[in-house]
Each structure stands twice: as structure tokens, then as C-alpha cells.
């Protein structure tokens, strides 16, 4: 029964991916991409990786979909040509890669247990209860730190493209219809609650900084969509400080271990250190993602139009 379900997920993943490449309309491609993200999170659930499943559903299907939809505003709605003659050029490298990956499976020994035993052996040293959080924020701290850096670089890139010093501009006008205001009143407190819950959960169960940050960011995106002025109330200096807080906090704590005459990124008070980094990272992930959505090209175009009508 499980095998049939897995097969259905795998085949529909491949089918949806194929459709994304082949459809003519960008809108359809985006909707299919969101579907792909949801199917992928189902696949991760089947592989018993709830952390990645939550992150994939929130980032890959949710926020990436919003970003793509925003970007759609500036593009023409249909592709000029339905990708002519790319079939072999794409298909053969893909087949080659898939073959290589399948080949590597042959070299995994039959009694290989992965890195699980090593992680559970070292887990008591971190004073954490959940192995995934320990791996992300302690054993592989470099990767997480640089991921925060990647987000920061993405926002800086957007600023460069927009040729602006700050990300914030005028908020959208408030929606006239009552449903938009009502749904914000209802959902925003719940979103803050669930974001905090996911963050707190990260210490001993699936959850953590990225998932919580994305939930908070989607709350911010909803506020922006409704033209609520509360986002604009945050001063732009605070905006910048919060944006870099995760990266900087990580760096400060990592290099402060050098003062204790220890190696870079090792830390005596592991649990406090990790929780502090996680909370700062959540805030800066949320702010970075909101900034990316706020600075979307469609919005930029709207600003230019507004400037033209003003002049």
C-alpha cells in the first residue's frame, strides 16, 4: 500500500516537473510550481523528514509562490516560444545526472545506517533534545550561518537592482472590502502564535528558525497586501538591524569562542548559545523574506508609474 502511494507521488512529481517546463503560460507554470512544492513536501513526509516537509511547504510552495506571482506582474503572460528543440539538450543531461545518482546507490553498503548513530552519540554534548536542531545549529553551524548570509545577499541584490537605500516604500492602499480586514484580524494573531510555537518546538521536535521565520514573514506579507500601516511604523534603522541580526549574532558568538582560546564556532554554553542564535535568526529570516516580497518588481513598476504621474 505504501509502495503504491510512493509511486504515485514520485510519478506525479516527475509529471508536474515536466508540465512546468512545457506549459505556455507563466501563470500556469507558477501554479504548477506551487503544486510541485506541495507534492515535494508530501514526499519528504513519506521519507520521515517532517522538518524538511514543513520548510518545503512554507518556503517552496507558499512564499516562493507569492514571490513568483509578484514577479509575474512585470512579465508578459505567455512565453514567446514553447521552448523549441530544447528537448534533447535538456533530456540527455538530466538522464545522465539521474543515472549517476542511481549509480552511487550501488556503493552504499547494505548495513549502512547513515550519520544517525554519530549524531545521537554527540547529542548530549549540545544539551539539545532534538537531533535536527543540533545538526543545523551546532554540528553544521557554518551551513546555517552562510544560509542566513545568502538571504542577506539576496536582499542586498534586490536593493542594488532597485537602486534604493532602504527596502520600504509606500504601502499599498487599504482594501475596501471587509473580508480582507476581517481575515487579517483573525489570522495575524494565530500566525504570530504558530510562528512562536514552531520556534519553541525546535528545541525538541520538528520545527525551528526557518519554519517559524517563514510563518512570521507570511504574516507580514498579509499585512502588506492589506495595506496595513503597521509595517511602515518600524523605523528603517530597526529594519536594517533586524535584517542582519541573525547573521551578526551568529558571527559574534562564533568568534567570541576565540576569546576563550577555543576553536572558531565552538561554545561552552551550548544550549543558550543555540537558542539565542535561533531566535535572532527567526527574526532576521522573517524580515529578509518580507523585504524580498516588498521589493518585488511589480511593486517597483507601480512606484515608477506613480512617480511619472506625479511629475
Amino acid at each position, binding site marked *: 500500500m505504501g509502495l503504491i502511494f510512493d509511486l504515485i507521488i514520485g510519478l506525479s512529481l516527475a509529471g508536474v516537473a515536466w508540465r512546468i517546463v512545457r506549459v505556455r503560460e507563466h501563470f500556469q507554470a507558477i501554479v504548477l510550481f506551487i503544486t510541485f512544492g506541495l507534492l515535494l513536501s508530501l514526499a519528504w513526509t513519506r521519507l520521515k523528514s517532517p522538518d524538511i516537509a514543513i520548510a518545503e511547504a512554507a518556503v517552496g510552495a507558499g512564499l516562493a509562490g507569492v514571490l513568483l506571482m509578484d514577479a509575474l506582474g512585470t512579465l508578459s503572460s505567455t512565453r514567446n516560444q514553447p521552448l523549441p528543440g530544447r528537448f534533447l539538450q535538456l533530456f540527455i543531461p538530466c538522464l545522465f545526472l539521474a543515472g549517476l545518482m542511481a549509480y552511487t546507490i550501488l556503493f552504499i553498503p547494505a548495513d549502512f545506517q547513515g550519520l544517525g548513530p554519530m549524531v545521537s552519540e554527540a547529542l548530549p554534548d549540545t544539551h539539545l533534545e532534538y537531533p535536527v536542531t543540533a545538526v543545523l545549529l551546532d554540528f553544521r553551524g557554518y551551513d546555517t550561518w552562510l544560509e542566513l548570509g545568502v538571504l542577506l545577499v539576496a536582499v542586498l541584490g534586490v536593493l542594488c537592482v532597485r537602486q534604493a537605500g532602504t527596502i520600504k516604500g509606500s504601502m499599498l492602499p487599504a482594501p475596501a*472590502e471587509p*473580508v*480582507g480586514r476581517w*481575515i487579517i484580524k*483573525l*489570522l495575524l494573531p*494565530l500566525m504570530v502564535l504558530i510562528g512562536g510555537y514552531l520556534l519553541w518546538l525546535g528545541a525538541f521536535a520538528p520545527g525551528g528558525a526557518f519554519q517559524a521565520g517563514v510563518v512570521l514573514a507570511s504574516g507580514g506579507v498579509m499585512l502588506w497586501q492589506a495595506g496595513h500601516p503597521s509595517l511602515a511604523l518600524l523605523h528603517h534603522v530597526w529594519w536594517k538591524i533586524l535584517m542582519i541580526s541573525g547573521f551578526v549574532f551568529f558571527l559574534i558568538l562564533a568568534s567570541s569562542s576565540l576569546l576563550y582560546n577555543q576553536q572558531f564556532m565552538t561554545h561552552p554554553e551550548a544550549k543558550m548559545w543555540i537558542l539565542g542564535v535561533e531566535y535572532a535568526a527567526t527574526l532576521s529570516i522573517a524580515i529578509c523574506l518580507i523585504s524580498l516580497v516588498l521589493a518585488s518588481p511589480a511593486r517597483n513598476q507601480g512606484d515608477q508609474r506613480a512617480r511619472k504621474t506625479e511629475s
Partner: protein
Amino acid sequence: MMSIYEILSILFCLIGGFFFLAGTLGLIRFPDTYCRLHALTKADNLGLGFIVIGLIFVSGSVPEVIKLSLIWFLALVGSSSACYFIGNHIHLLSKVRENRNGPDI
């Protein structure tokens, strides 16, 4: 031998699955956007509702029941609001189109 809770759970999940199937069929077969929205929200609300009830029968603890109910509640709020937004957008679009084709303009 299955307990009564497991039998009830399977029964409710099957009813939920039926509503999802009917909703999907409606989404594909109905002629215009309003009808499709109708089919889609029915599938979301009733189908998910029955599946949640089915899962509550086999859930282990009270927090689990609360979380499952919260999921249904959020899906209800989300799907009905999304339905309103899409319907409103289509309505406004059709109004714009009527004005464009009308004799006055």
C-alpha cells in the same frame, strides 16, 4: 479485530475522500468560475471536515484533537476568504468587460 473507533475513523475518512473526489470532479467539469468555486469550497470544507473527524477518533491525546480542529478551522477561514477574493475579482472583471462593450463608452 478492529475497535469501534477505528471502524468509525475509516468510515468518516472515506466520506471525506468522497467529497474531495466530488469536488475535484466539479472543478474539472463545471462550466464557469463561480460553479467551480462552489465545488472547490465544498470539497475543502466538508471533505477536510470529515477526514478531521475521522482522525479525531483515532487520535491519542487532547492536544492532538485541538490541533486537528484548528487545522479544519483555518482551512475553513482560508478557503472561504479565498473563494470570496476570487469571486469578487471575477465579478469586477466581468463588470469592466460589460462597460467596455456597452453602448455608452
